[in-house]
Each structure stands twice: as C-alpha cells, then as structure tokens.
C-alpha cells in the first residue's frame, strides 16, 4: 500500500485483513490449558476463628468437618449468613449420620428452637425435621406441603394455558404463599420458572408494584434457579426493582451472583440502590462497598439512613458500634429495629451494656425481642472469637419480667375461674362454641388478669375462621398477660396468624390503612416464637401496604 494512501482505506484494509486472519485461525483445535477465573476480592483479613471459617481466600476451618454442636450452634447464631447456613446444614448432617448422643441431640434441639432468624427458616426447618424424624406431626406437615405444591403446579399450568384468569400465587393465603417463598428450594422447576416469569415481568398480568412485591418476597428464597431472572431484573429494572433483586441475589450461593452485583455496583451512583447492592455484594463475599457505607454512616443523611444500616449489617465493623447505638434512640421505630439488627451483625461487645439498658427500658415487645436477639448474637460471636461477654444474665432478667399477675386473686375465685375455663373447654370439645364462649367470659371476669380463658376463646374463633372475633379475645389476653402469650409458641402462632388473616380480609375489601394498622400492631409483638412463614408474611404485607399507601 503506498505511503500516501488515505487513512480511511488503510483502516478498512487493516480490519479486513485482521478479521480474515482471525477467521482462518478458528478451524484449528484448541490447545488445552487451564484458564482459572479471576479470584473474588477477599474480605478484610480477620485472623480470628470467625475470619478463618469459610474464608474466600481458602478456608482454614471447614464447617463440614466440625463435630462440636456447641460451636456449630454458636456459629449458627453469630456467624455471617453463609456461616450460619453452613453450620445448620452441618448440624442436619450430624443428626442424619446419627453422630450425636441423646444429650447432644437435646442440646441441638434446644439451640435450634432458639434460632428464630427468618433468613434461616429453611435451614432451621431442615434440622427440626430431622430431629423429629418421621413422626405424625412431621408427616402431616410434609403432606400439607405436598398438597400445596401439587395444587400450585396444576394452577400454574392452567394459568399459562389461559384457563385461569388470576395469578395463582397471588391467590394463596398469606402464610401458604410465605411458605412457598421460604421453601423455594423444594419447589419443582415449573413453579420456579413461573416465579421467574413474575420477577422478569413476562407474565403479562402483574403491574410494577406487584412485581416489586414478588421480588421482595424472594429475599430469603436462596434458590440458584432464580439467578438468571434476578440478574435480568438487575440489568433492566428500575431502581426499586434493582434493590429487591440485589437483596435476593446476595443471599444466593452461586458463582453468577458476585459478577452481576459487581457490575450493578459499578454503574450505580452512591445512593440507596448503591448501598443495597454493596450490602448484597458483601453477602456474596466482596467487601468493596465498606468504605462508602462507612462514609455514608458518618454523613448521616436522613433519607439514606435505613439503607446505610442495611448495608452495615454485612459491611460494618466493630468500630462503628457507638455510631450505630445512636440509632437505638431514633424516633422512627423501624430505624430502632434496624439498628438492633445491624448491631447484632457488627457484634461489638462494647455495646452490650447499652443494648441491655435499652432492653430494660423498652415498652414495645417487638423492640425488646430485637434487642434480646442482638445481645444473643453478639454473645455468640464473642464466644466464637474466644472473648468473654460481660452482660447481666439475659435469661434471668427476661424470665423475671414475666409477672405472675393473675396469682394475686383469692383462692376460691381462682378455683371458680378454673372450673369455668374447664367447662368451657369441654363445651368447645363438643362443638358448642356459644356455651364455651360464655364460660370463658365468666372465667375471665372471675379472675381478671388471667389470659387462659381469653386465649381459649381466641383459639376457638380462629378454628372457626372468625378472625375479627379472635382478635378481640387475643387483644384482651395480651392486655392481661402479654408476656405469657408471647412466650407460648402454641398461642403466639395463632395470634399472629389471626392478625395476618384479618389484615388480608380487610385488605381485600380495599381498606388498606386498617390492614396496615393490624400488621403494625402484630409486628409490635414479640413474634420470635411464631412460625417463620407468618412473620415473613406479616413483614412482607406491611412493606407492601406501606408502598401502596405511598410511604
């Protein structure tokens, strides 16, 4: 080519020659060689036990080799999300392999029963199912789940065939729907594909708000089959959808998660979405957002505070404990609860005294429960680090709070109340609800401050699906003996369910404010002993109603 050839011609000739050379090279077989992917940037070095377990740089301590149930239970309480899951999975294996003595099994059962983290609902349920073995209750639970899934699969097929006008998941009762989202990993491929279509917005039915609700409900699904759909939302969704997709993705253990989140992190400015993505990325093992989250905490911009607290759950360090404690006095209750959760994960032993002081002062059961959970998580993590937690015995002070108010009534009056309660229970067994209710009312009047007859009355209404009536009885029981009601798993579950069902009824009638009021009331209770799916659904419904009402 002459030296004075036009740039244009040079350029075109050059690319044609290069392209032809590359094309000619394709036909040659590939020389095999190792091509390892780039390593994920490791989290800040932590040489303690906590830092060594499942470290991205190559684990020195392998959870799958651990056999000490005490360590595993502490890890399931105070570890990172991945560590907590791995610890519970290991406990399930130990139970499966019959590697534990009866005494150790009892310790595991007690420890697991105390773990009420919704994020771990699936893993906790798996351990409990193994502990229960093939008992009647376990079998009934399994059969109910199988029926639910079978019905869902059939409805989904009818939906895509055009025989069903409504979206089948949306019509499920709240607690069933919550179970579906919490146990996504057990669902057949067809159901997961359907949920993916809802998340991607290719169902042709859901609006933006409903789609966001579906994504929010997938937060704890942790199913790798959802990754392609969630990544697509991350790529093409609006800010609100991206945040929900990031939250769900961060909790999935899959090699595709970190690259997708890293790309989203790089293209979002420092704002709410950026912080949520940073937090999700940290859950996936990449701490690149830590500095930005720390700076955002220092700035304290009010609109970003909830997102900063969320980000610091996975990105925070112990030096931020004092700054986070400031939010325990925030006027917004949701910020106070969030601050508790963040402190639980940051796990700075120096804040235990402040948490305990707030716990003693708190008048709201839900907040007190969060504070207690935070204290337990911090103590567990300190134990794992080999440190000693200096805190008043939480169990002792918590039990002391249960005041035996009803026992102050005179003996004869108490006996009459017992008698009427007993007769009411018998009437209930014969199906005479009216008579039973009258007896319970009498018993309640004879012994004010005794919750038992009111609880029995509430449970009777729940069985009859008269949730509005049940709420009245449960509210009275809570006024009489709040902590006894909250601490009894057999009672608090139906109480939470009654609130949820009534809120759903009211919501269907279009009275969203009242429904939200019911959900907020339920969430102000200590629901740690209520079933995970009910707690999950109450939170989901509360968020959804909040968004609908424009908050």
């Amino acid at each position, binding site marked *: 080519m002459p030296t*004075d*050839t*036009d*740039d*244009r011609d*040079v*350029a*075109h000739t*050059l*690319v*044609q020659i*290069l*392209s*032809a050379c*590359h*094309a*000619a*090279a*394709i*036909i040659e*077989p*590939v*020389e*095999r*060689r*190792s*091509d*390892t*992917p*780039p390593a994920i940037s490791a989290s800040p070095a932590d040489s303690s036990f906590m830092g060594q377990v499942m470290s991205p740089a190559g684990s020195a301590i392998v959870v799958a080799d651990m056999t000490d149930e005490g360590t595993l239970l502490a890890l399931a309480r105070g570890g990172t999300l991945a560590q907590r899951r791995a610890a519970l999975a290991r406990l399930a294996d130990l139970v499966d392999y019959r590697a534990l003595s009866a005494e150790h099994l009892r310790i595991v059962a007690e420890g697991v029963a105390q773990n009420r983290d919704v994020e771990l609902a699936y893993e906790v349920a798996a351990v409990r199912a193994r502990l229960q073995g093939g008992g009647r209750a376990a079998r009934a639970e399994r059969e109910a789940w199988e029926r639910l899934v079978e019905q869902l699969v059939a409805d*989904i*097929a009818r939906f*895509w*065939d055009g025989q069903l006008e409504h979206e089948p998941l949306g019509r499920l009762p709240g607690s069933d729907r919550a179970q579906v989202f919490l146990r996504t990993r057990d669902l057949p*491929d*067809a159901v997961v*594909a*359907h949920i993916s*279509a809802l998340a*991607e917005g*290719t*169902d*042709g039915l859901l609006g933006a708000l409903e789609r966001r609700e579906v994504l929010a409900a997938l937060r704890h699904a942790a199913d*790798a*089959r959802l*990754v*392609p759909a969630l*990544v*697509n939302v991350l*790529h*093409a969704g609006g800010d609100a959808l991206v945040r929900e997709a990031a939250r769900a993705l961060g909790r999935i253990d*899959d*090699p*595709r*998660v*970190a*690259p*997708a989140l890293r*790309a989203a992190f790089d*293209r979002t400015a420092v704002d709410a979405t950026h912080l949520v993505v940073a937090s999700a990325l940290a859950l996936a093992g990449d701490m690149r957002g830590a500095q930005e989250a720390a700076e955002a905490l220092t700035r304290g911009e009010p609109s970003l505070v909830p997102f900063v607290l969320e980000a610091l759950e996975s990105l925070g360090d112990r030096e931020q404990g004092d700054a986070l404690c400031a939010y325990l006095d925030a006027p917004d209750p949701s910020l106070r609860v969030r601050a508790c959760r963040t402190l639980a994960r940051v796990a700075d032993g120096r804040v235990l005294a402040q948490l305990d002081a707030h716990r003693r002062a708190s008048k709201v059961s839900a907040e007190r429960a969060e504070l207690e959970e935070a204290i337990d998580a911090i103590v567990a993590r300190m134990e794992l680090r080999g440190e000693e937690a200096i805190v008043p015995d939480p169990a002792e002070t918590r039990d002391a709070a249960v005041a035996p108010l009803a026992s102050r009534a005179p003996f004869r009056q108490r006996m009459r109340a017992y008698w009427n309660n007993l007769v009411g229970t018998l009437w209930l067994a014969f199906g005479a609800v009216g008579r039973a209710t009258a007896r319970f009312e009498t018993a309640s009047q004879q012994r004010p401050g005794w919750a038992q007859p009111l609880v029995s009355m509430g449970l009777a209404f729940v069985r009859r699906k008269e949730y509005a009536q049940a709420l009245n009885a449960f509210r009275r029981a809570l006024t009489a003996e709040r902590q006894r009601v909250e601490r009894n798993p057999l009672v608090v579950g139906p109480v939470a369910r009654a609130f949820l069902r009534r809120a759903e009824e009211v919501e269907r009638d279009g009275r969203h404010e009242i429904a939200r009021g019911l959900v907020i009331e339920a969430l102000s209770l200590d629901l740690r002993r209520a079933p995970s799916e009910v707690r999950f659904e109450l939170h989901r419904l509360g968020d959804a109603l909040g968004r609908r009402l424009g908050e």
Partner: protein
Amino acid sequence: MSEREPPRDDSQRLRGALRRALLEVEVDGQRGWVTITVGPGPAQVRAISEDGDEGGPLVEAALEALGFGDPSGALLGPQASQPPGLRRESLLPQGDARVDAPLSTAGVAFEDLVTAIVRVGLDEALEAPSVEAARERLLSACAAPAPLGLARFLGRLRAGLAERDPVTVTRLLDEASRFASAARQRAPSPTDLKRIQIMLGPGRDGVSSVSDCVLVELSREWVAGVERHSVERRLLVDSRSGELLVECRLQKGTASLGPCPRVLRVGLAEIESGPAPRRIHILQYEVGHALDASSFDSIAQHAERDLSALRARYQRDIKQYPGLAEPHALFAPARVDRDLGLQLCDASGDALPLRRRGDEGRSAALERACAEVSPEWVVGTLHERPEGLALDPCGVALRHDGAVRYLRLR
C-alpha cells in the same frame, strides 16, 4: 483525482497532487487541527477536526485555505450537496437521492467509525471524542429508535472496546467496512442488500413466515444495544430442525409472554433472513410451560456432536457476517474433561473449553452443576479467544435419576 480534468493553474495543480494535509487553524480565537484528505479515485475531499467534526468554522476555514472552500459549506458533510467534480462516490445519483440518502449517510458514518477507531487505537477508542462523534453520526443517520441490528452492533462494539478485545472489535469494524462498501454501490448485490437489511431493519422481502412449529425457549438475557442492557434476547430452538433462533425486543418493545424455559407452540411467526442465529418474531402462540421428555429428546437429536464441524460452521457464519453473526451452539459432548477445568469433548477427544473471562460466572455455575453428573447437552454462545473457540453457556440438560432436567444459566 485522476478521473477529473487536469488542473489548469498552479493552485489547481497543487490541489491535484494533494492527498492529505494537517492544518492548524484559528477562527475567532478558537484554534484547532483539521485533517484534510483528498481521495485518489473519483474526487473525494474530506475534512475532519480533532473533535471529529466534519463541519464548523475551523473545517470551513481549512478547506477554504486549500482552495476547496465553498461559501455555502457544501463540502463539509456527507449530507450536504456536493459541488461538481467533488461528489463522493458513496453518494448516489441525484435521482435516487431522496430514497437512498439515509443509507448513504449511514455508509459514510460507518466509514468514519472505522477510521476513527483505527486512528486512535483499541486502548483509547472507548473514550475518544472522535469515536463518540462517529457513533453519534451513525445513530443520527438512522431512524429512532435504532434498528435492532445497528443497536446490537453498537452495543457489542462498546463492550469490545471496554474489554479491549481485539478480535471482537476487528470483526465489528470489518462488518462496518463491508456495510460502507455495500451502501456505496449504485446497484448493490443481493448480499449487500441483505447486509443493509440486517443492519438497518428488514423490508418485507427479508422476512419469511412460518407456522405450526414447536419452539423451546432455553435462555433469555438483556444484552447491550445503543444503551447498556437495552435489548432483551431470548434463545429458542426449533424442535423440528434444531435451528437456534432469537427473539429480540428493545426495552419498551413487546415479545411473547411466558416463563423460561418453556415450550411454545407457534401458530404464526416471522423469521428474518440473516446471520446466525436468525431473529424470529412470534405472532401467534400457545405456551406449554414445562419442558417434557419429548422436548428433551428432539433437542438432543439435533445437538451437534463434532467439534470440527462446529468450528467450520462458526467460521462460515463469521466470514459471511463478521460483525452481525453471534453464533450459538447446542452441543452434546461425548464426555467431559475435568482435569483443567470443565471442558466438553467430542468423540474424537477434541475439547471445547468454557469461556472463563467475561462469562459472569456462568461457566463456574455449569461446572458446579456438572460436579457429579455429565451434561446431556449444553447450549451457549461461541466466543473467540486467542487459542480458539470457547463456549459461554446459557443452559445445560442434566440427567438425574433417569430423568432429564434443564438448568437455565442465563
């Protein structure tokens, strides 16, 4: 210049000998460099400022200084009318101007894009103002929203420049160069016409109708178009022929409804002729939402098993449409090799490695899925690496307890 009449005076003689000049010009306090190039064949004069502008006071002043000036600014842009003797060959005769002006403009814009990128080099091209300006000119030459072919071309080019991937960028520039040549033809060949249609959108003759077929959707993803992640692409396989097709839509466009993976019983669809995989527009369909055993059987029957044939097909596709073809493969390995990471091998032992870099974790996910079982078939996008072809997996069929399951990876 050789086809023009010989110059009559000195200044004309000078202009006749001129091929390229770089002038520093100052107008109203604004100073800049202007490159003027005079084409060798039929007269072509081109001026471009350092900012990539082909118009403006600096360019006008430079042209005027060399005697190419035209007070009306007629020489300055490809869309401007040309003075006698200086009409660019890429512009069609006056009679056709109304119909083909946008095509011609697009052709020139593609030429500019190639020149700009080659000038600044791969390392700098992503941020270079001249490249960005050429890109903008290309977009303004086409109706908005940009046609899918062009949008995808630009998206891939940006990604290739960002990754500094010489192979992809070379292919795309080769395509741009071919498009420019095709657009310059007064009577384009059928191949040239097809290339233009693929890039700028098909006419009715570029589309064929199909009816009563069964497609299986295997993956869907948002890929780069004019903007990042602005084109949704769904990969489907025709269960009768085994051909891989794509259904594409822009962010605000529409596409068929349904989950992925799924079986689609198509009543009516249109398929654009073009590079692999061809684009399909699904018009009438029923969704059978789950993949059944017969779907898996038919897909497995059509899967490729010979890597040398697969490479030859890839080479053919790429040679024909270097920047438009995005070959995919449905490959059924005879066995897998796990010694140096998962590699899919055919019966002769030839191996197809997975794409590790830029695959967003899909290869690792495939490796994890295949930790204990061998894949029945894998579907994915073929990519060139310096050592040869590699597969970026979109999905895999695995046999568990006698039943085949499909795992979507993207």
